[in-house]
């Protein structure tokens, strides 16, 4: 059964159809939330809320856009909201500055090289500007194609490519700077 058919059945109130949608996309939606929010509890919550929004807007789903891209767009929006709320909270409580968090997540000397590399790249992804972070998360973590990213974020493919390029360049730079220190 295609995603479009499932979407129609679910929007008519078929719970089993929606559970099938959950089964198909749970992993990818969670992957986006986990990397965008970097907190497993909040990611799980964000993924659940994304699915609720997906359900409530099933009637607006346009099969032309592709289900994954459409769902990813909703998920990215949910994550954006949460990050904004978090930023507001952070501003209000200045003492939790970025540097504190960085130190707490700095690798301990027992971690070996590969693990250190992964941690460095994760910290670097975290530091990317929101727009660049989104394309990296969708490409590297949710494994979207260029077309899917374009449809999810409602931008042109050319923009996706240039953002992805800039994001990757920035990551390489941060990664190498991290290795030197």
């Amino acid at each position, binding site marked *: 059964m295609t995603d479009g058919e499932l979407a129609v059945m679910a929007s008519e109130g078929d*719970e089993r159809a*929606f*559970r099938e949608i*959950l*089964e198909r996309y*749970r*992993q990818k939606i*969670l*992957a986006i939330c*986990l*990397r965008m929010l*970097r*907190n*497993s*509890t909040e990611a*799980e919550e964000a*993924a*659940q*809320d994304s*699915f*609720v929004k997906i*359900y*409530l807007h099933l009637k607006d789903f346009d099969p032309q856009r592709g289900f994954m891209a459409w769902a990813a767009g909703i998920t990215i929006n949910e994550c954006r909201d949460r990050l904004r709320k978090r930023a507001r909270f952070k501003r209000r409580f200045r*003492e*939790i500055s970025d540097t*504190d968090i960085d*130190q*707490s*997540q700095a690798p*301990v000397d*027992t971690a070996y090289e*590969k693990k250190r*590399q*992964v941690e*460095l*790249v*994760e910290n670097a*992804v975290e530091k990317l500007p929101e727009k660049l972070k989104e394309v*990296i998360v969708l*490409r*590297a*973590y949710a*494994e979207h194609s*260029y077309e899917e990213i374009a449809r999810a974020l409602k931008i042109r493919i050319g923009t996706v*490519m240039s953002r*992805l*390029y800039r994001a*990757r*360049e920035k*990551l*390489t730079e941060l*990664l*190498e700077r991290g290795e030197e220190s």
Partner: protein
Amino acid sequence: MNECKKIEKLLWEYPDGKLSAADKDTITAHLEGCEICRRALKTMNTLRESSRADRRAISSIDTFAFDNTVMAKIRSETKAPKPETENRKYMFRMAVSVGLAAGIVIFLVFSISDLGDLTLQRGRGEKPATIAEEKYDRIDIQLRRPEIAKKLEIAPARIAEEEDRAVESFSILSAPVSRPAPESVNIDAVYLTDESVPYFSQQARASLSEVVVDTGMIQSVETPMSMLVTVEKMPAPVDVVLPEYPVWAKKRGISGVVWVKARIDESGNVVDAQTLSSSIAGMGFEESALEAALKSKYMPAEANGIKLPVWIVYPVRYVYKTSIP
């Protein structure tokens, strides 16, 4: 530079084997001479490594509980106002109960008038009403049903039906589902491997406010915000008490999963336990999991040779098994 941008697009797909042999050759040739793209590939490979770690963390999520939470959230979002038919039914029931009450009042009026007759009769010096006669009156309340019905223009069967329904709704416990007794009740072993816990919660397990510094006497460091400490040795189970299968769930043949978060202190005792999620509430799974958690013993966690109190998270699965379907 333009060449590099083309290569970049290909590189994202590079190790996946989705590329044609020609593309692969182009990449290999280009990488040979291009330092920038070699560095780019290294970054992408590290990203892939990180993505794989994320996927492992995600695979440990209790999908059953996840899906159920989503469905519950949807249900609470889409709770529609009561449909009209429901209201009409409700009104009918109201009418019937009001009718019944009225009927009883009418009956009482009748009996009082009967009583009047009785006193009159008594006054005439005849035999007083016996207990048997009173009994007969009581029985008559039911026998008069057709009479009441006739007055209210409702079929007597309908009244009986409504009465039964009212009685039913008053019984708190509905009849238990009859199922064969479980042949075996099996609780999964409590396991604490790193895979069972998402990466991020592993990091959050120990916080600095819980670090105990040994300077001749035990002293706990208080900090305004708890900072993360990496634990080298996770607590190892010494004596894990298996939870009891809740009686009610066993009778009904219900399975369930409860995620437990337990705090293990420096001596390996469980000092606090909470449930994080439960696949089905009200069946006693949470209570039995917590009770067992508090009785369990562990080897304490360690960092740099110092024993630390930590929180651990683990699932307890209650699996109902029976050979009879």
